[in-house]
């Protein structure tokens, strides 16, 4: 009851954030755009046109045209979704820690662990509401207009939400340490960049030095931190194989499993720190 009270409150707070309202408006515009722009051709997905124009034929990559469109949509939207998401919820932890708010929350019969988890899960759920709105909307449009009910695209939202939940562990610890929404955003984006760099370390960071210790150090960092970039990359692989991807390999659960460990570790450290602080 207490946990759910804080959880519900956090979802409400997340959804009402100006950034996410903006996201909601943008997502709605995109949905309207596709509703109006995609030709109605449920019997022949290859004949689908956008605003009367034939989409470039990706047949050489062995892709269905709708699948190709969904892949492009997924790849281009995930970055913005994460961007809006971080902006939307980065202030939740510092906001909770503000004088006058934290006093009230901690005076209630709610443990610090419950409070922290309710905020983290509530924030992720708030973002999930927006993500599901967009992904389900797109899925329905393509299903109804092009006759392609792409379950892979629909299920990819779960992986994106999962990746966001992992990234929020970074936002949480940054928020607890700095008590600043601005710093939390900065740290979360820096982490995303680092995650991307580590994901592609064999083609980038490894080339800086041949030192084995340096390579092992990068590997260790990669495996003990949430693999955001790898998870987002994998979330698109459930749609189909992107011929333009740097890492055109099969879908794997490994980044999700490694990230489960590292996210748990980060939340554990966050709780340890939070439970020892005076407010």
């Amino acid at each position: 009851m207490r946990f759910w009270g804080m959880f519900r409150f956090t979802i409400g707070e997340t959804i009402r954030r100006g950034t996410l309202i903006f996201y909601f408006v943008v997502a709605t515009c995109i949905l309207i755009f596709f509703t109006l722009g995609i030709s109605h051709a449920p019997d022949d997905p290859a004949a689908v046109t956008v605003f009367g124009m034939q989409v470039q034929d990706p047949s050489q990559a062995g892709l269905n045209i709708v699948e190709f469109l969904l892949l492009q949509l997924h790849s281009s939207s995930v970055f913005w979704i994460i961007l809006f998401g971080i902006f939307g919820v980065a202030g939740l932890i510092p906001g909770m820690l503000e004088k006058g708010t934290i006093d009230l929350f901690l005076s209630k019969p709610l443990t610090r662990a419950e409070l922290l988890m309710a905020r983290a899960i509530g924030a992720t759920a708030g973002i999930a509401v927006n993500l599901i709105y967009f992904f389900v909307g797109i899925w329905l449009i393509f299903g109804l207009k092009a006759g392609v009910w792409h379950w892979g695209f629909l299920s990819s939202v779960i992986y994106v939400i999962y990746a966001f939940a992992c990234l929020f562990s970074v936002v949480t610890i940054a928020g607890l340490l700095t008590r600043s929404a601005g710093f939390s955003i900065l740290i979360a984006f820096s982490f995303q960049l680092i995650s991307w760099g580590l994901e592609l370390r064999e083609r980038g960071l490894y080339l800086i030095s041949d030192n084995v210790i340096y390579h092992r150090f990068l590997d260790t960092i990669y495996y003990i931190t949430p693999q955001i970039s790898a998870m987002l990359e994998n979330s698109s692989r459930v749609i189909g194989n992107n011929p333009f991807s740097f890492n055109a390999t099969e879908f794997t659960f490994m980044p999700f499993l490694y990230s489960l460990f590292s996210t748990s570790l980060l939340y554990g450290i966050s709780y340890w720190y939070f439970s020892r602080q005076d407010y």
Partner: protein
Amino acid sequence: MEAIQTVDLTKYYRTGLFKRKNIKALEKVSISVDQGNIFGLLGPNGAGKTTFVKLLLSIALPTSGTATVLGHSLGQRALKEQCGYLPESHRYPGFLTALDTLIFFGRLNGMPESKLKDKAKSLLELVGLKDWAKVKTKKFSKGMLQRLGLAQALVNDPKLLFLDEPTDGVDPIGRKEIRDILTRLKGEGTTIFLNSHLLSEVEMICDQVAILNKGSVVRTGIISELTAQKLIYNIQLSSPVSDDLKVRLGHKHFSLEFKDTSLNATLKDKSELNSIIDTLRECGIGIEGMTQQKTSLEDYFIQLVKGENGR
């Protein structure tokens, strides 16, 4: 039975880059608050009043010492379930209405959903915000937020209520209403722990007080005892004192001040009072009344704190 019992409760805040610097907030504070009383904790800014309450509610963690609240050790869920708290500077989510705010805090207190709405409405009526139930709190004035804060603190029918500057920003009528609510709660058996700078208000409603200065308790007691000036009596007489009698009383080395039919006597001990009365009666002067002089709590507080700080 004590509602609050602390023994040598001490708090040092660690500051600095590596948290090596210790700042004393409370030093060996031992306080006992009886159930059903209104207890006032007084002290200048930075004396440690808010820290003391925060320690009891586990908002801050003690460096050393022990405490029990309603028979529970610090940090226990059962303790918080029976307490209400109005912090000094409280912030409420601006996107919630007054009614939703109380429902939200009721949920955090674990109250059953079925009772929440009715409870919230009755509390809004109690604090005079009935007509503002559907208005978002971001539109509330400071005084209204203070009333809402009091309602929030009462949402779980607490046995022990902690109030930190409850009348801050409230107009005089509102203050009177809050005092009346507190008096009524006391009548219902609620223990109230009050932190306040408004000493006149504390004097009006508190049974007991403790005065904190620089993190240490410098006085505790019943207000009437603390504010009673030691052995200064005003004696109302039936007739003026003759010069002869003045000389007679003067010989006994009392410090006396005569004014028509009254005299003020500053005594070393109570036996001197009997001696004065005997002398007056021997001279045929009736005693119509006698009062021990009192000072206001504010005067007492200022004298005490100035004395403690060597000012």
